[in-house]
C-alpha cells in the first residue's frame, strides 16, 4: 500500500519534471518576486547558521550559475524562523526536513520540487528513518514495551528524525513517550551525544537518525556490538540499523508565490546536478532526485496528532460519532448529571492527582537515590584525586630537586664546552670531574677501545691507571657495557685493575655508529640511578663522542691537506726536473774539471803546484753545493713537513729562489730577492714557506717569460707584526676574468698545468693563519702577496 502510494506520489514529480524540461524558458519576467532577480532559499539551520551555510552555500551558488538571470541567496533559519519566513513570503524556496516540510506544505502551500539524494559513505539513499537503541548486555530493555518507566533521550520534541519517528513507533507499541517513560530528555544536536549518553549508562535508551550509529562506528567513536537496536526492522536496499518506518529525505520546495517557471528551472538545475560534483559533495549529498511521496510523513503527523493535524478534532469526532447514545443518556441522566457531575469531576481530578503525585514521588525517590549515589561516588573520586595530588606534589618536589641539580651540572658542562682556552684533553678531564661531583662518585675513567684493549685516555679520582695504560677489555667492568652497547649501572662484584668499587655506571661513547670509547664512573654507593641522571651521562657521552668525531675530522682534513701539498711539491719538482738536472750538472761538471785537471798535473809530476790545492778546494765547494741541492730537493719532496716552528722567511725565500734559479735561467728570466730589514719569525715549517714561494715564483717566471725584460722581483718585509712577501713579475698581468678564479682547484691557464698549485698555496697560507692576494701591479705585471702572522716573542 505504501509502495503504491509512493509510486503514485512520484507521478506529479515526474510530470513536473517533464513540464520543466519541455517548458520554454520565456516566463522569466514574472519570476523573482520581491524585487529584481534575487531568489532567497530558506534553509533549516538545525545545527546553526554557520553549519548550514558551509553545507549549502555551494548548492545555492550552483543554482545562481545554473539558472542564469537569478542570484540565489542562502538564508538560514530556525524551525520557527523558517515557518515565519514562509508565512511572510520572505523566501522563494525552502530546504527543510520532511516533517517540517509537511507542516509548511499543509500550512502555507509549499510544494516540493526535488528530494535529496543523501550520501552516507558509499551509499546513496533517498529515504531515512530512526533507530531506537539501548546498550547491549546488561540492559533489561529488549523491546520497545520494556521502555516503560525507563529514561529516554532524543533530540527535541520537534525533531523529525531525532524524535518524532521514534515517537510514532513507541506509540504503536503502547508507549506514550511523554507519559509512560521514566524520564524523557531532549538534548538537541549533535545526535552523537545521545549515543554516548546511552552507552555511558546515563540514560536507558535513545533515538537517533538512521546511519548515525554506523558513522560513529566508522569514526571509531563507538563499538556497534555495544548497541542493542530495539524494534529492528529491515527494508530492502536500506543498509542501516532501523527501528521505524522509512521516510523520504529532505525535499527542496518552492513557496506558494514562486513562479512555476522559476521552480521548473530550479528543479531542472537540481536534477541535473552531477552526483559527484563538488557542490553535491560539499552538501554531503549525491545530488537530487525527482520529488518523492511525503504521504508517510503526513501519516505520521496524523497518527501523532501533531503538526498540521494538531487541532483538537478528536473530541468533536467522538461527539459526532456517538450522538444518539449521548442523546439518550443525556436525557436519562440529565438530572443525575447535574448532581453527580461535580462529584465525578472532583473524583476524577483527585484520582488523576493521586496518580500523578505517586508518579512524582517515585521520580523524586529515584532522583534522591541517584543523588546520594552520586555524592558517594564523587566523594570517593575526590579522595582519590587528593591522594594522587599529594603523591604528585612529592614526586614533583623530587623532580624539581633533581632538575635543579641536573640544571647545575648542565650549566657547568656547558661552561666547560664553551671554554675556548681548554684543549680537548682538558675539556674531557673537566667533564669527568663535573660528572663525578654531580653523581657523588669517587672515580671516572674514559678509555679508548682498540682491538679488544682498554686504553685509558683520562681519569679522575683514585684510579690506578695513568693515561696510556692498556689492559685487555675481557674481565673489566667495561666488557658488559661494550656488550650491551648502552648505559649500564649496577654493583660490581669483583676487583679489577681499576680498583675495588662497589658500584659503577658505564656508557659507550659512539663516534658515528661505532663504539670508540667507554666512559665509566665508580663509587661505593649507588648513584646516578635516575632517568635524569642517566640523561646527563648520555649527554656527556655524546659530547665526548662529538669531540672525538670533530678531532678525527680535523686530523683527516689536516692529513688530506698535507697529502695534497706533498703531491703539489712532487708535481712542482717533476715539472722542474729538467731544470733541476741542470742545476746539479753545473757543480758536477766543475768537480769533474777540477779533479781531472789536478790528477793530470799530479801525474805529470807538477803536484807541488799550489794551484792543485786550490782547485781541490774549489772542487770540494762545488761538490758540497751539489749535495746541498740534492738535500734541499729531498727535503722539499719529503712527505711530512717538519714540525711547525720559527721559520725565517728570508732564508726560506732564498732557498725557494735557489730551487727555481735554473728554471729562471733557462727561460731567460732574472729573479731578484730583496729582504727589507729584520723579519719576525713565522710559525710554520720551512718547507711550507718554500712551497708557497716556489709555486708563486714558478708562475711568475712563466708569466715573465712572455714579456720583454723578463724579471721577477721577490720582496719580503715586516708590517704590523706580519711578514709580507710579494712576488711580482714583468708579464702581461692577470686578465680580469681570471683574477676571481685563480685560487680555485683545477683552475689553470697553462696547457699542462694540473691547476692545483695556487689552490694548494692558498690552503697552506690560510692554514698558517695568513692570507694571499693576487693583483695587477700599477706598472704592469701580476703581484702575488702573501701575508703571514709573525710569532710574538713571548711564545
Amino acid at each position: 500500500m505504501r509502495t503504491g502510494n509512493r509510486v503514485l506520489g512520484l507521478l506529479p514529480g515526474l510530470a513536473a519534471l517533464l513540464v520543466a524540461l519541455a517548458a520554454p524558458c520565456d516566463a522569466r519576467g514574472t519570476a523573482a518576486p520581491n524585487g529584481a532577480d534575487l531568489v532567497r532559499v530558506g534553509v533549516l539551520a538545525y545545527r546553526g547558521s554557520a553549519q548550514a551555510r558551509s553545507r549549502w552555500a555551494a548548492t545555492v551558488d550552483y543554482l545562481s550559475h545554473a539558472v542564469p538571470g537569478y542570484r540565489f541567496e542562502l538564508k538560514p533559519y530556525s524551525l520557527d524562523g523558517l515557518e515565519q519566513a514562509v508565512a511572510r513570503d520572505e523566501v522563494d524556496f525552502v530546504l527543510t526536513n520532511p516533517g517540517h516540510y509537511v507542516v509548511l506544505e499543509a500550512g502555507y502551500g509549499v510544494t516540493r520540487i526535488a528530494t535529496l539524494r543523501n550520501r552516507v559513505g558509499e551509499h546513496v539513499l533517498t529515504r531515512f528513518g530512526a533507530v531506537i537503541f539501548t546498550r547491549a548486555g546488561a540492559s533489561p530493555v529488549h523491546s520497545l514495551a520494556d521502555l516503560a518507566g525507563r529514561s529516554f533521550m532524543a533530540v527535541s520534541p520537534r525533531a523529525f528524525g531525532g524524535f518524532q519517528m521514534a515517537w510514532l513507533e513507541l506509540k504503536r507499541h503502547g508507549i506514550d513517550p511523554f507519559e509512560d517513560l521514566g524520564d524523557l530528555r531532549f538534548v538537541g544536536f549533535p545526535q552523537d551525544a545521545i549515543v554516548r549518553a546511552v552507552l555511558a549508562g546515563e540514560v536507558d535508551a535513545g533515538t537517533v537518525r538512521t546511519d548515525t550509529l554506523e558513522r560513529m562506528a566508522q569514526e571509531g567513536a563507538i563499538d556497534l556490538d555495544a548497541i542493542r537496536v530495539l524494534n529492528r526492522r529491515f527494508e530492502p536496499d536500506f543498509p542501516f540499523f532501523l527501528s521505524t518506518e522509512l521516510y523520504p529525505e529532505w525535499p527542496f520546495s518552492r513557496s506558494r508565490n514562486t513562479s512555476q517557471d522559476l521552480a521548473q528551472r530550479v528543479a531542472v538545475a537540481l536534477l541535473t546536478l552531477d552526483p559527484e560534483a563538488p557542490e553535491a559533495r560539499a552538501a554531503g549529498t549525491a545530488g537530487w532526485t525527482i520529488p518523492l511521496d511525503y504521504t508517510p510523513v503526513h501519516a505520521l503527523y496524523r497518527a501523532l496528532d501533531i503538526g498540521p493535524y494538531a487541532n483538537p478534532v478528536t473530541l468533536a469526532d467522538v461527539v459526532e460519532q456517538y450522538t444518539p447514545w449521548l442523546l439518550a443518556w443525556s436525557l436519562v441522566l440529565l438530572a443525575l448529571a447535574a448532581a453527580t457531575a461535580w462529584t465525578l469531576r472532583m473524583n476524577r481530578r483527585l484520582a488523576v492527582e493521586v496518580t500523578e503525585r505517586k508518579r512524582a514521588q517515585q521520580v523524586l525517590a529515584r532522583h534522591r537515590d541517584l543523588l546520594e549515589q552520586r555524592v558517594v561516588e564523587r566523594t570517593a573520586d575526590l579522595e582519590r584525586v587528593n591522594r594522587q595530588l599529594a603523591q604528585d606534589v612529592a614526586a614533583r618536589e623530587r623532580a624539581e630537586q633533581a632538575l635543579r641539580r641536573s640544571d647545575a651540572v648542565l650549566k657547568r658542562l656547558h661552561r666547560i664546552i664553551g671554554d675556548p682556552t681548554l684543549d680537548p684533553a682538558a675539556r674531557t678531564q673537566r667533564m669527568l670531574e663535573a660528572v663525578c661531583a654531580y653523581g657523588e662518585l669517587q672515580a671516572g675513567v674514559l678509555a679508548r677501545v682498540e682491538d679488544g684493549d682498554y686504553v685509558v685516555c683520562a681519569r679522575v679520582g683514585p684510579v690506578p691507571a695513568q693515561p696510556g695504560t692498556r689492559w685487555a677489555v675481557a674481565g673489566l667492568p667495561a666488557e658488559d657495557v661494550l656488550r650491551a652497547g648502552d648505559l649500564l649501572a649496577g654493583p660490581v662484584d669483583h676487583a679489577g685493575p681499576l680498583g675495588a668499587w662497589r658500584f659503577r655506571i658505564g656508557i659507550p661513547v659512539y663516534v658515528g655508529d661505532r663504539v670508540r670509547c667507554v666512559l665509566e664512573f665508580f663509587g661505593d654507593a649507588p648513584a646516578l640511578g635516575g632517568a635524569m641522571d642517566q640523561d646527563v651521562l648520555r649527554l656527556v657521552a655524546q659530547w665526548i663522542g662529538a669531540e672525538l668525531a670533530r678531532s678525527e675530522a680535523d686530523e683527516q682534513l689536516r692529513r688530506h691537506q698535507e697529502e695534497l701539498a706533498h703531491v703539489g711539491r712532487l708535481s712542482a719538482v717533476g715539472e722542474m726536473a729538467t731544470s733541476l738536472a741542470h742545476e746539479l750538472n753545473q757543480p758536477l761538471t766543475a768537480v769533474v774539471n777540477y779533479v781531472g785537471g789536478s790528477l793530470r798535473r799530479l801525474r805529470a809530476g807538477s803536484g807541488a803546484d799550489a794551484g792543485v790545492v786550490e782547485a781541490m778546494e774549489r772542487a770540494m765547494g762545488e761538490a758540497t753545493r751539489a749535495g746541498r741541492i740534492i738535500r734541499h730537493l729531498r727535503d722539499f719532496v719529503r712527505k711530512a713537513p717538519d714540525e711547525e716552528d720559527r721559520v725565517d722567511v728570508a732564508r726560506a725565500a732564498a732557498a725557494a729562489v735557489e730551487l727555481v734559479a735554473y728554471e729562471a735561467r733557462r727561460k731567460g728570466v732574472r729573479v731578484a730577492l730583496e729582504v727589507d730589514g729584520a723579519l719576525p719569525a713565522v710559525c710554520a715549517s720551512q718547507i711550507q714557506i718554500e712551497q708557497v714561494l716556489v709555486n708563486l715564483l714558478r708562475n711568475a717566471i712563466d708569466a715573465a717569460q712572455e714579456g720583454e725584460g723578463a724579471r721577477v722581483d721577490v720582496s719580503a718585509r715586516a708590517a704590523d707584526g706580519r711578514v709580507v712577501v710579494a712576488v711580482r713579475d714583468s708579464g702581461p698581468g692577470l686578465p680580469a676574468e681570471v683574477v676571481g678564479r685563480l685560487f680555485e682547484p683545477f683552475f689553470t691557464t697553462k696547457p699542462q698545468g694540473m691547476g692545483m698549485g695556487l689552490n694548494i698555496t692558498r690552503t697552506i697560507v690560510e692554514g698558517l693563519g695568513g692570507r694571499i692576494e693576487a693583483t695587477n701591479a700599477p706598472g704592469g705585471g701580476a703581484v702575488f702577496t702573501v701575508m703571514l702572522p709573525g710569532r710574538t716573542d713571548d711564545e
Partner: protein
Amino acid sequence: MNEPLWVHVVDDEAAVRDSLRWLLESVGLHVRTHAEGEAFLAAYRPGETGCVLLDIRMPGLSGIEVLERMQQMDGEVPVIVFTGHADVPLAVRAMRLGAFDFIEKPYSDSLLLERVQRALGQRRRRRERELAVQKTREAFERLSPRERQVLAHVLEGHSNKRIAEALCLSVKTIEVHRASLMQKMDARSLAELVRRVVEAGLQP
C-alpha cells in the same frame, strides 16, 4: 806551426769556466774564457783559434746565436757545444749549424779532453794545409816568367828536350830553369811539385 792555438770557453757559470780552464791547461792547452757570447765574439780571431767550447744555454746571446754569427765569419773553427740532458733538439740544431760535436754535462774529463784534442787535430791539419798552399802560392809568385813557362811544360809531362825545342832554348838552359823552380817550389820530386800546384789550384 808553433804559434799557440787558443781554446775559447764560453759559459755563464763562473765555476764551470774556471774549472774548465784548470782542466784544459793541465794538458798544456791555451785557454781563454768568456762569460757571455758577445764578449767572446768581440775577442774571437779565427786564425788564432783552435776550438770553441760553447754552452748552448746562456742568458743574453744564446749558444745557437753565437754559432750563427761564427758561421758568417769563418766556418773552419771547430765548435764543441755543451748541452744538458734531454736537450737533443738544440744539439741537432747546433750540428746543422756546423758544430763539430756536442757533449752532455756532466761528462768525464778524459772524454772532453779527447774531443778537444780531436777538434784541435782537425783544426791543425786544416791549418797546415792552408799554410802549405799559401807557401806554394808565394813560391809561384817568386818564379820568373821563363820558369813559369818551364813549369807549365813540366806539368804537361814534356821532356826537357821537347821543352827546349818548344822554347828554342838549349836543353842545358831548361835543366837550369827546372832545377831553380823545383827549389823555389820546395819540391823534391816531380810528383810533389804536381801535388803542390794542384792543391794550391795554380794555373801557370
